[in-house]
């Protein structure tokens, strides 16, 4: 870290905090034990601002801004928990639940799912939107892992961890809008991929039960994303 980094001071939820100028609101909030919900964000991966759950209010701005990709500014006054924000966050989660087939009781990640945990924490009791019930495939062609598009929320953590950490870029997103899908290589079965190294990083960063290890039954798929901060730290140490 360069020694000449400037320090900015700002207020988050009425608390005075200081931050390095290259930090995001989310980073500073987490350093100060202020909770902001996220699904697509993961420390060690590039931020994309896709899930919109980390939206915060900033005094003087009529727009809601995603905390994970908004840099801190001097004198900023940030609110992370207002009534409006909470209702938007619940709405975003409801839309995610209604978009595909999230059936927790038979999901391998039941009890270990970030989206489920978040829904419980935000007090989600009902989905007020009609479910779309799309007909989506499950890819079980890989001998170790499986991909269930019914549970995918297109957070692109798998895409980013594969491209940025493993360096294989097996995954990407195809199509657009409601037809968007996570694809493997040229939209082919995972088991036929020549680029996949079967490292399993994508499986363990997936926040839901979309990516899982085969041989696990309902509620048995606990994720172990701890490798990511470890790898990030070791690579930074190796680069110095």
């Amino acid at each position: 870290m360069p020694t000449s980094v400037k320090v900015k001071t700002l207020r988050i939820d009425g608390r005075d905090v200081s931050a390095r100028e290259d930090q995001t609101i989310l980073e500073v909030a987490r350093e100060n034990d202020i909770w902001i919900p996220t699904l697509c964000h993961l420390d060690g991966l590039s931020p994309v601002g896709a899930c919109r759950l980390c939206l915060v209010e900033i005094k003087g701005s009529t727009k809601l801004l995603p905390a994970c990709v908004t840099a801190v500014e001097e004198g900023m006054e940030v609110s992370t928990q207002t009534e409006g924000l909470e209702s938007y966050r619940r709405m975003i989660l409801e839309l995610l639940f209604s978009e595909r087939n999230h059936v927790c009781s038979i999901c391998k990640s039941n009890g270990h799912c970030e989206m489920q945990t978040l829904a419980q924490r935000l007090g989600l009791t009902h989905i007020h939107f009609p479910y779309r019930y799309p007909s989506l495939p499950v890819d079980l062609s890989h001998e170790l892992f499986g991909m269930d598009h019914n549970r995918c929320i297109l957070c692109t953590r798998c895409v980013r961890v594969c491209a940025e950490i493993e360096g294989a870029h097996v995954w990407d997103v195809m199509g657009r809008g409601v037809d968007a899908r996570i694809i493997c290589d040229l939209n082919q079965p995972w088991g036929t991929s020549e680029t996949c190294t079967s490292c399993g990083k994508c499986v363990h960063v997936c926040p839901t039960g979309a990516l899982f290890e085969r041989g696990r039954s309902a509620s048995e798929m606990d994720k172990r994303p701890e490798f990511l901060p470890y790898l990030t730290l070791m690579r930074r140490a190796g680069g110095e």
Partner: protein
Amino acid sequence: MILPPEKQPMPSDDKRWRLVATAMRRHGYKSHGLIESLHSIQETFGYVSEDALKFTAKMLRVPLSQAYGVASFYHYFNLKPLGRHSCVVCRGTACHIKGSAQILSDLEQLFAVRVGETTEDGSLSLLSAQCLGACGIAPAVVLDGVVMGRAEAESIVHRVEEVVAA
């Protein structure tokens, strides 16, 4: 061994690959030339085949999944060969209000084909566009590259029938 782009073998003996390779060279075989390369493939072959995507990925050193992702994101690129005739119906807001949905469903019914697909006999590909940017002449339909503005469902269907039968 990884060969430099200049020495990569062409996917087949088809001379048209050289046109594609030339387009890639114009952009220095850089990954940001991906969309331009796909354009040249579509112009040369009429569609973007799996071989073409593999070739592009290798030449520009972009991941296969990214090449497919980009090609599938833009409606302009066809991943399957088109029929002898193509009909693009605009689905923009103005065209929608002027009844493009009716035109689409009429054509779908008459030719027994779904939007984005080609009839079984390969005579017609029915496509849609999000907006052709020709809202002033809504609803807009492009039949074999010719724009037809202020299209009425009946006359359009009739015209398409004529062209396909010819």
